[in-house]
């Protein structure tokens, strides 16, 4: 569920644009005004604002934001202002350009988005980068990572709830077999994760637990330093329990553990209108402290204010 708070009476688009333009003019920037407007508009409203702003002032709002803002605050405002599919295209492109084997963004976007959302992201990718997402992922990744990531970003999974339990049993057995042999990059293992519907995978993992006693991810922890295993575990988590995956990504970022420092910005910007409520609940459950308090403790200034606005904390 979304945590975005849109006011009951929203000013007209023209007014919003005028206020934003005022926020940029003169000495310095009125960040508070930017947060109070953009931080409280949904995707449709933001799209309209961008359109009207460009028509009125002859400049893309994003360019103006890029000129005026800096650092973390700039990044979250820019990411937030983009259309969800443009945002995903931007993030995946960035991930391919600076890809390392610890990078989780490609997997995260490919697996947590619905089949339709992933398709829209691929479409937006064509429009913006004049190449397909899969060609860039294939080009910039290698080895087992490529073997997993290209099918993941190319998937267009069946979106229904239909599940074949017999198949789930046999594929659970297959997964267990491969994992026991430490054949983590096995063709069939990857085939199952990259092509089956999310409902089918969920059924398969339940069978796995019934039959073999453990959650599959427990069996994928043989080597804590193995980055491919980490991506496999992430894939599974993103496919069947994304809110747990997002909670962990935020927790590690806040605690400065792991390598994904951009996770806080990315997760909040991409999930605020999607699943942020569930993620907040997970965070509270796992850490015994509400997410907004953790963010307030760990971040400062306008960046902090924007994050808190997006996760629905009412302004003091």
């Amino acid at each position: 569920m979304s945590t975005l708070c849109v006011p009951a009476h929203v000013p007209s688009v023209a007014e919003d644009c005028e206020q934003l333009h005022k926020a940029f003019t003169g000495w310095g920037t009125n960040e508070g005004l930017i947060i109070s407007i953009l931080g409280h508009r949904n995707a449709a409203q933001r799209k309209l604002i961008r359109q009207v702003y460009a028509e009125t002032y002859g400049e893309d709002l994003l360019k103006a934001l890029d000129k005026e803002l800096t650092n973390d605050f700039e990044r979250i405002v820019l990411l937030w202002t983009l259309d969800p599919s443009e945002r995903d295209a931007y993030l995946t492109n960035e991930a391919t350009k600076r890809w390392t084997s610890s990078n989780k963004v490609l997997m995260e976007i490919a697996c947590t988005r619905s089949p339709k959302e992933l398709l829209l992201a691929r479409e937006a990718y064509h429009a913006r980068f004049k190449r397909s997402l899969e060609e860039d992922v294939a080009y910039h990744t290698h080895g087992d990572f490529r073997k997993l990531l290209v099918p993941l970003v190319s998937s267009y999974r069946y979106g229904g709830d239909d599940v074949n339990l017999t198949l789930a049993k046999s594929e659970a057995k297959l997964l267990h077999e491969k994992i026991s042999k430490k054949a983590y990059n096995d063709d069939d293992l990857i085939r199952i994760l990259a092509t089956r519907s999310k409902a089918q995978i969920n059924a398969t993992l339940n069978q796995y637990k019934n039959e073999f006693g453990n959650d599959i991810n427990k069996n994928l922890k043989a080597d804590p330093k193995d980055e491919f295993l980490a991506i496999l575990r992430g894939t599974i988590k993103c496919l069947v329990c994304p809110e747990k995956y997002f909670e962990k990504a935020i927790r590690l970022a806040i605690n400065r553990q792991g390598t994904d420092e951009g996770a806080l910005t990315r997760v909040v910007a991409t999930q605020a209108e999607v699943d942020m409520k569930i993620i907040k609940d997970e965070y509270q459950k796992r850490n015994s402290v509400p997410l907004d308090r953790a963010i307030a403790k760990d971040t400062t200034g306008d960046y902090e204010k924007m994050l808190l606005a997006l996760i629905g904390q009412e302004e003091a």
Partner: protein
Amino acid sequence: MAASDELGAITKAFSGFGVDEKSLISILGKWHPEQRQTFRKGTRDFFIQDERKFERWDDRHVIQLQHEFLRFKHAIVLWTMHQWERDARLLKEALYKGPQHNVLIEVACTRSSEELLGARRAYHSLFDHSVEEDVAFGIHGPERKLLVALVSSYRYEGPKVNEETAKSEAKFLSGAIKGAAGNKNLIENDEVVRILVTRSKLHLISVYKHYKEISGNNLDEDLEGDLYLQETVQCLCKPQAYFSKVLDASMRPNVDEIKKEAVTRIIVTRADVDMKQIKEEYNHKYGVSLPNKIEDVANGNYRDFLLTLVARGY
């Protein structure tokens, strides 16, 4: 009509593609028992002399006749279908009847990105699975990766091509092909598959052009040793030549039913797309016009329907 002409007409009515309904009605329908017997005794292909002294239908031919009578119906149904449903059903059929790798490659590579996406959507609706999960599950061996990736592709279709990249990828392919003795392991070369499976069609056409400049040969000719890679390149870079080649192979005498089905499939699926160019290619390559060839080998309603589609001028 002279008796021998009548025998010839009825023989033809039962041979080739489709059946000649008019002749069967007007000639066969008026034949007396002796005339029919003359026919049975005279055509070794359709009838066998039974040991108990009568001429009986060869079962294989009766089974084939079922296909021939239904050929027109099949073409009509396929033609009337929404393109997405048509392609989804062709993909599904290709998987469980074979599998027919060539049809999977043909559909995945000759449709536009949006058309392939539509087919994938229809596949969800019709079969409650994604096409890639069925292809991955149903295909084994080294060609699986290629085929799954081909049906999953959503290629960029804009005009922008990076010539430098195309050139270096052509160079790479040239080296890879030279290095793989007899092309046996080429399909397992991840880089080769990456290029063919992810790059845009315009980019690949540029790669094809650079390859010719570098090696002096055509890329698809040099891929003779790996049928799947060769077909992939042909479908992506020169589909009309590919289609005219398959049409020719399908209309030869004594080909099996699976090959014969290609005629309906290609003419129905290309009639609104590039039939004009296919006709030109066909004529250029085989020295006879496609309509004339169809006249020659096909009969009745099926023939007339194909000719109508082929004449549409797209």
